[in-house]
């Protein structure tokens, strides 16, 4: 690898001083012949072998630890919750991995684990490993526990990863979701309220509409001035006056020719002015139509104002869904968030189709970049768990019972596998908190449209108790049944959650004990007399902002009794509120409606006048033209 200007290194190795050749030195006849360099340095294989040996030794000593840490970090990032692995052993000879002490923290309750397993064995297909793909032939789990308490709370995964973002999004949505409030205001406190007009949406909308009407009017005025109709009329009048009484005889041939040309020019100007007027008319109609729509929306705003003003009265809740939402909304929202979170993760990590998929690259000192997966038809997916089975029994504790779970075709590329993920689980533990539970799920991302469905039914369940919002009561539903139907079709969701119990107990909540007003005492008596509880929550709509409707026998009973006792008084109060809103709205919107009407009428009037005047001028000029030409030149 010698090059011109270089010095053979054997000279240096013999200890001769380095002497660069001077640029101007004459070529020497005794210059040594250029020596051919060896291309390969075989002694370099020794350090290379050492490097490989070191890598091998590092793998033997620390390989398991590195894989454990990497797996733990990757799972934590993917699931958005802390995943701990106590130990991991890679068995290269068997192409299998054995994990011990797996614990996945509950993202919604950092002091608990969603699932913990003492032992997991994963047998891999070795051939796909060459393509950096994980195809799991067998997957076995032992010592599974659900919902266990953690020794230390899990750390918050506060990053911008998909899972953390999804979790944040759901929490933000839940925080913004406005539960109906169970209002049991004493009847005797319902009085006339003093409404501040600026609080009403209709008034704000009317003010904005008035400003818009002014700006439309200003714009139309500017356009009118831009039409320059006055100049056109003046020009036409001057020509008509000049040609009054003129004839070809008085004007001569040249004068007549010039007069005809002038008439034609001014007629052309009038036609152009007509076109401008028509264009302005179209603009004016569009502007007024927008204002009309604004006037129409005032009625919608008024309906919202009725609800707002009614809210200020703090009337007792009368409607069944409202009471149901108030009583069971928080519980339903909590469950819904959990289901949606896992469904969103399934959608993210099991996308349909075979398009290249960029994902954030690995964390390192250098930038992560994006790592792109290129799925290929009839090849292995990046990850595929062909089938997994879990059968185990727990003898003691709250989780005692026999468990069976089956999982098939869990993969990152469903389109390659061609079959949806199927999951089923069953628990039989008579006498425990969850006597019998069956869960089945189909996650179908094979085609273009993703459809996930989950059905969970539980019987002989000990339904957890909860505090009744608005009343110092605690509900202990006792043992009952529960069913969850969840279907996610694309970005829309339809879910139904039902809980039934026939051994409900109502206990005073000492932490919230207080003196009850007459209405609260009534409701407390009503609900305390109920032994059955049946709650149904329906969630439908876009997955991130669905509508939630909750109904129960409880709210029907409460609504009926409240209506019986206080219905008349409440109706009177509501009527007063509506009248007050109507008064304020009429006062504030009437000028705006009038202004819009005036604008419409004025623009129509001005357009009509302009049209008539232009036509009149055109007729006059045409008359002059006819008299000059004797009607021989066609119009």
């Amino acid at each position, binding site marked *: *690898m010698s090059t011109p200007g270089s010095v053979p*290194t054997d000279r240096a190795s013999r200890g001769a001083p380095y002497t660069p050749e001077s640029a101007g030195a004459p070529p020497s006849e005794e210059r040594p012949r250029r020596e051919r360099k060896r291309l390969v340095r*075989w002694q370099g294989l020794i350090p290379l072998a050492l490097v490989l040996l070191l890598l091998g030794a590092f793998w033997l000593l620390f390989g398991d630890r590195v894989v454990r840490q990497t797996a733990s970090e990757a799972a934590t990032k993917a699931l958005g919750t802390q995943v701990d692995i106590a130990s991991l052993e890679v068995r290269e000879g068997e192409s299998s991995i054995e994990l011990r002490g797996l614990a996945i923290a509950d993202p919604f309750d950092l002091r608990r684990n969603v699932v913990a397993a003492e032992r997991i064995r994963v047998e891999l297909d070795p051939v796909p490993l060459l393509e950096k793909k994980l195809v799991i032939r067998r997957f076995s789990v032992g010592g599974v526990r659900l919902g266990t308490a953690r020794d230390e709370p899990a750390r918050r995964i506060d990053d911008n990863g998909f899972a953390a973002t999804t979790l944040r999004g759901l929490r933000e949505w839940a925080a913004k979701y406005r539960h109906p409030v169970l209002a049991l205001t004493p009847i005797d406190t319902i009085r006339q309220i003093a409404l501040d007009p600026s609080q009403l949406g209709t008034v704000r909308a009317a003010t904005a509409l008035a400003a818009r009407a002014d700006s439309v009017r200003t714009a139309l005025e500017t356009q009118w001035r831009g039409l320059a109709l006055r100049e056109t009329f003046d020009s036409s009048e001057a020509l008509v006056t000049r040609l009054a009484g003129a004839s070809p005889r008085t004007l001569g041939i040249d004068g007549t020719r010039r007069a005809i040309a002038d008439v034609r020019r001014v007629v052309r100007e009038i036609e152009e002015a007509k076109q401008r007027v028509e264009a302005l008319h179209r603009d004016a109609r569009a502007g007024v139509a927008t204002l009309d729509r604004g006037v129409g929306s005032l009625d919608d705003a008024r309906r919202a104002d009725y609800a707002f003003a009614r809210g200020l009265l703090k009337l007792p809740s009368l409607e069944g869904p409202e009471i149901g939402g108030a009583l069971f909304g928080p519980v339903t929202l909590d469950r819904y968030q959990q289901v949606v979170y896992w469904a969103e993760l399934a959608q993210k990590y099991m996308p349909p189709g075979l398009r*290249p998929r*960029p994902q954030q690259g690995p964390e390192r000192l250098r*930038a992560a970049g994006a790592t*792109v997966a*290129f799925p290929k038809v009839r090849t292995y997916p990046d990850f595929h768990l062909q089938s997994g089975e879990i059968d185990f029994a727990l003898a003691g504790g709250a989780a005692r019972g026999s468990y069976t779970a089956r999982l098939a075709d869990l993969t990152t590329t469903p389109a390659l596998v061609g079959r949806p993920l199927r999951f089923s689980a069953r628990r039989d533990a008579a006498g425990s908190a969850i006597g019998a539970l069956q869960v089945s799920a189909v996650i179908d991302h094979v085609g273009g449209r993703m459809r996930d469905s989950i059905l969970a039914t539980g019987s002989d369940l000990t339904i957890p108790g909860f505090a009744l919002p608005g009343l110092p009561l605690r509900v202990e539903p006792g043992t009952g049944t529960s069913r969850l139907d969840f279907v996610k079709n694309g970005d829309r969701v339809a879910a139904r959650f039902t809980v039934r119990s026939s051994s409900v107990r109502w206990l005073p909540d000492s932490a919230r004990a207080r003196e009850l007003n007459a209405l609260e005492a009534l409701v407390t008596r009503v609900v305390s007399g109920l032994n059955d509880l049946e709650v149904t929550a329906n969630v439908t709509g876009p997955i991130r902002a669905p509508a939630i409707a909750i109904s129960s026998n409880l709210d029907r009973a409460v609504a009926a009794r409240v209506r019986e006792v206080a219905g008349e008084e409440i109706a009177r109060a509501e009527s007063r509120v509506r009248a007050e809103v109507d008064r304020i709205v009429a006062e504030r919107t009437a000028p705006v409606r009038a202004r819009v009407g005036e604008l419409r009428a004025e623009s129509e009037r001005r357009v009509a006048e302009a049209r008539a005047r232009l036509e009149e001028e055109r007729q006059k000029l045409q008359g002059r033209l006819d008299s000059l030409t004797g009607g021989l030149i066609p119009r």
Partner: protein
Amino acid sequence: MLTLLKLLQSLIKTLHSDGTPGQVAAGMALGAVLGLTPLMNVHNLVILSIILVLNVSFGGAMLGWALFLPMGFLLDPVFDDIGRRLLLETPALSSTWTAAFNTPVIPYTNFNNTIVLGSFVAWLALSLPIFFAARYAVSRYRATVGERVRRSRFYQAVTASKAYNVYTWFRAD
């Protein structure tokens, strides 16, 4: 400390007598890939093997690595952009990538990462300019200030260490 000293020795020796300017430049061009691309990747193991086995200057490679390492960090956004264009925004290459990344062993190169691919492609494009520029620079250095540096006390002190002997194993012939 010993490692640093050895590295310093190798760098200084490289500039003075360790191989021809061509060998040093070839080492620097190969070493540049270690600095420009993320280190922990299979292709860098191959490059290291080439540096050790081919008759190029090992010191030159270390010098190239040291010089181009900060550039690698600085140019990551550019590499990311190049990688994205090649992997995601060039439909003509899509079938090539699909075939390549479904071929055994190839996925372990991590060339499906935008930074790895972008930096490697940038190195491929820059390797010849690096080689020629380095060869010219080493020749000029040796022809101008090299001899004065060689006579300096600093140079004598650095090259006196016996630890340097280990390094001579990889010295270009």
